[in-house]
């Protein structure tokens, strides 16, 4: 090749290279604008273990997350453990606690376009209280008398007597506000084929046994104050999948088929080790306790119960049976609930002291007279038969508790029952003890467990104490928070001393959340705070 030709070739090649380079440069500049934009959105997938009875909060015995996304309540329980206004901006208590006037938020609309106003509130409360409806949630209204509409955004609720747990009732979904227009329109189908509220998500479809689908409410502008997002939710959809089995749910979380799932205690370690799952922990509103029948001999003798109180080792129970997923709690109120008073631990709670236990047993007449290792009286050994559920973790708990109690020479028999059988047996009062739990977010629940008027059902330990009765009744009428707290402190103090219950621990609930979900927080008592949460998805046109 001659030099001239070679030179021309070189020039051509150089030119091509330069054109290419120039083109590439331009491409990278142009590339940035054509990248898809990432926005906050996506579909949130959650599970539930069995279909809710109804999406009509007046017709269901229990409410859950799905109800709290469709509906709003007048009042919310904030991260500061105080009640704050939500659909109600403020309220005034009058007539010695028998009347509460609510000033409602303006500009709130239901999903069907109708306006939220005082009439809507009255409609809802009257419907809930209507005896023809036989609503399971009617008790939340307490001694409700009627509701008066003062003006479009002012409503007064009137009771037959002061009812201090009402603020708590208002913060539950049972007293959420549903659209009167929708209830009237859909009749019997409301709650099954339709559910209209003011919440951040709207009901779309419910395939029984399979899933419930909610879509974002684009007009939502009134989230609770602790959220940064003041407008509609980020998620476009929320889908609840029916997964009754907990292992299926865990697997689905691992495989990114589900975004948020409650994690049972035994799986917590494994889940924490998984790379794409965040585990959040929260103390629940529950207390697991050993309840001893206080009306039946020999355990009606308080000294025997107090002896058991001196024996139980709560740390051991939590560590061995629960892998640490619990907070030892010797008080009858959960550590996460208003009314919990840790100072009682120092003051009143019986410390672990086997010798003291044995002394108490002896005082009550029980000694090991025949050297067989078991204490007895008049030739009969002391037996504690503990009834408990046959579902996890109760049999394990019972076994660990049994191991502790037999060390003091008391024979322990465990009886695991189906819940139907267990709950039916307790009103009869023939049992020795039960190992069960309750979950409640207000100390008023103690009324149901310890008041003598509840012996036919929920006072499962058959505890009768007129002083406690009086205090429980008084606490229901006192509206001032500090005064209420003081009364419940006194009640708890008596109960801890008398030991009809030996509270063991407050369970810690773990929630697993996929790393793709950002902005998620766990509120008090394990509530899902979803309004700031989102997934990063490409923007759709």
């Amino acid at each position, binding site marked *: 090749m001659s030099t001239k030709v070679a030179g021309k070739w070189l020039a051509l090649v150089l030119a091509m290279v330069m054109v290419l380079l120039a083109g590439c440069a331009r491409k990278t500049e142009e590339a940035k604008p054509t990248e898809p934009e990432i926005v906050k959105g996506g579909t949130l997938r959650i599970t539930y273990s069995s279909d809710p009875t109804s999406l009509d909060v007046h017709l269901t015995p229990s409410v859950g997350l799905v109800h709290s996304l469709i509906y709003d309540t007048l009042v919310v329980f904030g991260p500061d453990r105080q009640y704050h206004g939500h659909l109600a901006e403020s309220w005034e208590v009058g007539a010695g606690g028998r009347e509460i006037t609510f000033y409602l938020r303006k500009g709130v609309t239901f999903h069907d376009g109708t306006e939220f106003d005082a009439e809507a509130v009255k409609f809802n409360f009257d419907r809930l209280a209507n005896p023809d409806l036989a609503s399971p949630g009617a008790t939340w209204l307490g001694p409700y008398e009627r509701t008066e509409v003062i003006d479009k955004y002012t409503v007064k609720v009137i009771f037959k007597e002061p009812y201090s747990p009402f603020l708590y009732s208002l913060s539950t979904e049972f007293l959420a506000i549903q659209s009167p227009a929708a209830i009237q329109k859909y009749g019997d189908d409301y709650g099954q084929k339709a559910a209209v509220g003011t919440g951040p998500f709207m009901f779309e479809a419910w395939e029984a046994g399979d899933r419930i689908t909610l879509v974002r409410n684009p007009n939502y502008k009134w989230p609770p104050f602790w959220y940064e997002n003041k407008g509609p939710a980020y998620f476009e959809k929320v889908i609840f999948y029916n997964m009754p089995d907990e292992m299926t749910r865990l697997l689905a979380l691992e495989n990114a088929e589900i975004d948020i799932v409650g994690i049972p205690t035994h799986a917590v370690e494994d889940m924490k080790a998984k790379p794409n799952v965040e585990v959040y922990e929260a103390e629940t509103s529950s207390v697991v306790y050993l309840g001893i029948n206080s009306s039946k001999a020999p355990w009606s003798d308080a000294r025997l119960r107090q002896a058991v109180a001196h024996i139980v080792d709560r740390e051991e129970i939590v560590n*061995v049976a629960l892998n640490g997923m619990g907070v030892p709690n010797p008080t009858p109120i959960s550590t996460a609930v208003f009314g919990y008073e840790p100072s009682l631990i120092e003051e009143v709670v019986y410390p672990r002291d086997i010798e003291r236990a044995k002394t108490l047993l002896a005082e009550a007449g029980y000694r090991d007279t025949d050297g067989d290792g078991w204490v007895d009286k008049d030739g009969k050994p002391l037996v504690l038969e503990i009834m408990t559920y046959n579902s996890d973790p109760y049999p394990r708990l019972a076994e660990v508790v049994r191991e502790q109690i037999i060390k003091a020479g008391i024979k322990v028999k465990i*009886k695991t029952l*189906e819940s139907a059988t267990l709950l039916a047996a307790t009103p009869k009062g023939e049992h020795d003890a039960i190992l069960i739990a309750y979950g409640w977010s207000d100390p008023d629940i103690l009324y149901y467990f310890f008041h003598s008027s509840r012996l036919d059902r929920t006072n499962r330990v058959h505890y009768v104490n007129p002083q406690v009765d009086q205090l429980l009744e008084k606490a229901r009428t006192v509206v001032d928070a500090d005064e209420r707290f003081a009364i419940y402190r006194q009640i708890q103090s008596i109960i801890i001393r008398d030991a009809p219950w030996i509270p063991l621990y407050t369970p810690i609930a773990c929630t697993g959340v996929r790393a793709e979900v950002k902005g998620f927080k766990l509120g008090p008592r394990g509530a899902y705070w979803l309004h700031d949460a989102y997934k990063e998805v490409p923007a759709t046109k």
Partner: protein
Amino acid sequence: MQLRRNRGAVAGMVVVLFFLLMAILAPYICPHDPLQVDYSRILAPPSLRHPMGTDWLGRDVLSRIIAGSRLSLSVGFIAVGIGLTGGTVLGLLAAFYPRLDNLIMRFIDILLAFPGLLLSITIVATLGPGLQNVMIAVGIGGIPGYARVVRGATLSVKENEYVQAARALGSSDVRILVHHVMPNIMAPLIVMITFGLASCVLSAAALSFLGLGAQPPQPEWGMLINEGRRYMLKAPWLVLGPGAVITMVILGFNLFGDGLRDALDPRLRQ
């Protein structure tokens, strides 16, 4: 006896005897106390000290399996006993009193129409939990089988000329029963009992597995599998041990039953 020739049957008998001995001698041969907890050795893998490992309370699994043999086998025997007694009474009544026959056979059909496990669960729900009620529930499920066999054998014997003659001569029903019916049904009944033992042990284990039978801390085999299930990935020996043992016991009874049937069945004698 012909039985000895059937190697399977001999093997089955050996297995059955092995577990029967285990059940009888249980308190003496357990290396550790099956109820003794040890929180320092939770979920330990098999070792010299604990050949089958420990469970979630640190209890020795081998000891629990040995102790459990007593529970599982006695449930099997008593359940079969209940089925046999009930079934025999019903079968005899049906055969001797034709007026009752229809009624009793309908009752048997009804019992059979219930899906087996569902019937057991309902009975346990009604009577309450505990191994005694499991025995009753499983035993009741076995009644139809025995009733039919006893009834059939009694009926065929009744038609026998020899028997009719005896009756004409005034022999009471009871005598006929003892002298003619009993020998005839011994063979099939024994075979049924053997298979019945296997099936009752299985049903009882299934009920305990569902949480409806043994109460903690009883180490019934089905209950052991139920308890061990949640730790299966971390500690598979908790499930493998009891499961293998149940399989072996049932295998033993089945082999033995097969052999018995072959030996006692007149048609196969060649």
